[in-house]
């Protein structure tokens, strides 16, 4: 009996861990997936957009805490940081689109992917030059309180991260489903060529998509700063590639798929390390992904599409 309770505690504990990790992957990979769906491009700069957004968030948060801490309630500062960071970060997204991807509209997709990769390297190096080699510690925007409910440990920060991520995804879903812009994006991911004929310019939709993606990355960045408060210029690389995996695993242009794949990735990482010896984690986790794609070659919600690499 005791053993059973302990097992349940163990599983619940890891479920919470996985939910938190998965939330980041989900939110970041949605941004990736949107660009992928609308423009059929790998936005390899997305991980670094996330990194820059986190640095912006760090700047805003530090500024606000220095100016207003004490006489403005904490949650308000938190909210303001998120909103302003989202706004600023979305311009980074627009910049990347206009400077890096727009000139390559008619180029092969692989070239655009390389451009993204290079923009990412430029971002990393620029941050390193501007801020030096020092790593930064993201200031806590809310006091972390640890709870112990029946042997399961969690903090209020963890709960908040999971809830905000879910709310964000819900909001995005509404945006995509209900608004004019969202519908244009959806249409674009169904048929890349037909939408411009309907009077919606790709030169409006594409930056918008990048902006929304970068905005999501900004929220993810601030939440990330709360959970893992160490910032360094290369922090976006691995998470970017993982978002790439999740976005494509979810199926082309499917927001739902990307979110699901993001959570799945989180679960795989946490539970593989739990069940197997943790040294084998990457080996097993990536083998699982390889197997999934071998047997489900279109991802989770992928549509049958005949696009090839435009080579």
């Amino acid at each position, binding site marked *: 009996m005791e053993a059973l309770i302990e097992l349940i505690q163990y599983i619940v504990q890891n479920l919470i861990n996985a939910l938190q990790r998965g939330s980041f992957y989900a939110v970041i990979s949605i941004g990736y997936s949107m660009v*992928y769906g609308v423009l059929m491009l*790998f936005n390899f700069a997305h991980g670094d957009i996330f990194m820059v957004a986190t640095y912006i968030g760090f700047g805003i948060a530090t500024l606000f805490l220095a100016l207003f801490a004490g006489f403005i309630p904490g949650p308000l500062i938190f909210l303001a940081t998120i909103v302003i960071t989202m706004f600023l970060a979305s311009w980074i997204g627009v910049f990347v689109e206009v400077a*890096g991807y727009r*000139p*390559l509209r*008619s*180029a*092969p*997709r*692989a*070239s*655009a*992917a*390389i*451009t993204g*990769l*290079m*923009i990412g*390297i*430029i971002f*990393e*190096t*620029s941050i*390193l*030059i501007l801020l030096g080699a020092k790593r930064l510690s993201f200031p806590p925007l809310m006091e972390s309180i640890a709870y112990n409910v029946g042997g399961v440990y969690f903090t209020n920060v963890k709960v908040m991260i999971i809830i905000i991520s879910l709310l964000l995804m819900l909001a995005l879903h509404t945006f995509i489903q209900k608004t004019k812009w969202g519908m244009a994006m959806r249409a674009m991911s169904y048929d890349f060529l037909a939408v411009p004929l309907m009077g919606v310019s790709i030169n409006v939709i594409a930056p918008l998509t990048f902006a929304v993606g970068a905005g999501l990355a900004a929220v993810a960045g601030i939440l990330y700063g709360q959970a893992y408060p160490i910032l360094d210029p290369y922090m976006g*690389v*691995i998470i970017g*590639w993982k978002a*790439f*995996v999740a976005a*494509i*695993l979810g199926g*082309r242009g499917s927001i739902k798929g990307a979110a699901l794949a993001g959570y799945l990735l989180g679960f795989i990482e946490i539970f593989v390390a739990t069940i197997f010896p943790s*040294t*084998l*984690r*990457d*080996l097993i986790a*990536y*083998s699982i*992904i*390889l197997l999934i*794609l*071998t047997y489900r*070659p*279109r*991802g989770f919600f*992928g549509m049958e599409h005949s*696009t*090839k*690499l435009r*080579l």
Partner: protein
Amino acid sequence: METARKFIKTFSNVPMLGWLIGFFAAVLIEYYWGYDYISYYLGLPKIPVLFGALIMLKEPIMIPGAIAYDLIVYVIPILFIAKVSIFFTNRVAAVLEKTPLWMSAIIHLAFFYGVLHLWAGINDYRVLIVKLTLISIILTISINVINGYQGEFSCSHPGFMAIGAYISSILTLYFFVNDKTFGTAVLSSELGPWLFPIALIAGGVAASLGSLLVAIPSFRTRGDYLAIISLAFMFIVKSAVENLNVIGGARGMGGQPDYAPLPIIFIWTILCIWVVHNFVTSIMGKALNAVRDDEAASESMTVKTRKTKMTAFMFGAFWAGIAGGLFAHVLAYINPGMFSINRLAEILAMVYFGGLNSIIGSIVGAISINVLGEALRPLELFKWIIIPLILILVMIFRPYGLISFKEINAKKLLRSKHKREQGA
């Protein structure tokens, strides 16, 4: 503009042999007078290693000296000798033209190697750069087979390279070296250099067998999903090696014997260029392009698409394995961290910079990125802003890379320029 065109036209009747002789003369000048006279009087501390790029960026005050050095040692002698010697070189080229193409090519290559060896021999740093550049050429050509000719976006190349590097290192360490991982050598270490090609090929074959893990899913999966599969493959290889403590795990594996001097690497590079060139210009190899451009049409035209895809992956992986083996023996140390995302970004940059579907493009790409990476070393961090910017510009203005969809035409390259002048 007009002057430049005229200037170039002046040299249109110089055959390849002429340029080689010019280069030879330049190297001789550098060899005999470079250190004692020319660089001394120009106030340079030593013979500038990469045409003065390093010294120019580090100490701007040396810029005039370095430029003058380049002019005196390279530009003027090469242009002068090449132009002056045409009466002779064109005739020799015409004679060579009558011999079989392979013979003419081998003579040219042997001469080229001799000059290169002399040039590199002035400074071991040059030797190292040339070695690593040649390995990069093999690597870039091999990924071009998959990403260019076959048109998949494969991210698994560092993985293939790792397999080749580890297998060949294990073989050479096990058989020819007394070391702490595998104990005493099984065979005499004198046999090592002779049997080294077998170890390399074993590495290549192992890499191509490993590539089946990516190739077989590619029957059902195309493009984007395959990119993920190949990425997963790369991580799997890295993680597997990390967990194998027998071969050093994350601590890496060192002490590989020095079986890869410059001539060996040069021969392997030429072999790679030759074999890949033969393959991609044959109908069998052009099937790769057919499958890339339209799979259904290829099937209907009797092309075995599955076999073709498998060939592309296995062939590309084989050469990546060879490159990995050479790389391991040049550095005499490998660890799994070397074959990860960073390496992938570098390989992708080289192939897309140089040009898809073109061997000559791959050569240009590999040389450019390698030399640029070395030459901009003194800029430290800013190097990683300038190189990406150059790549972005290339992508914008030449989306398929600098030289794409172009094959080497050895006959045209090596022919005498004499007759054409007369005919015109």
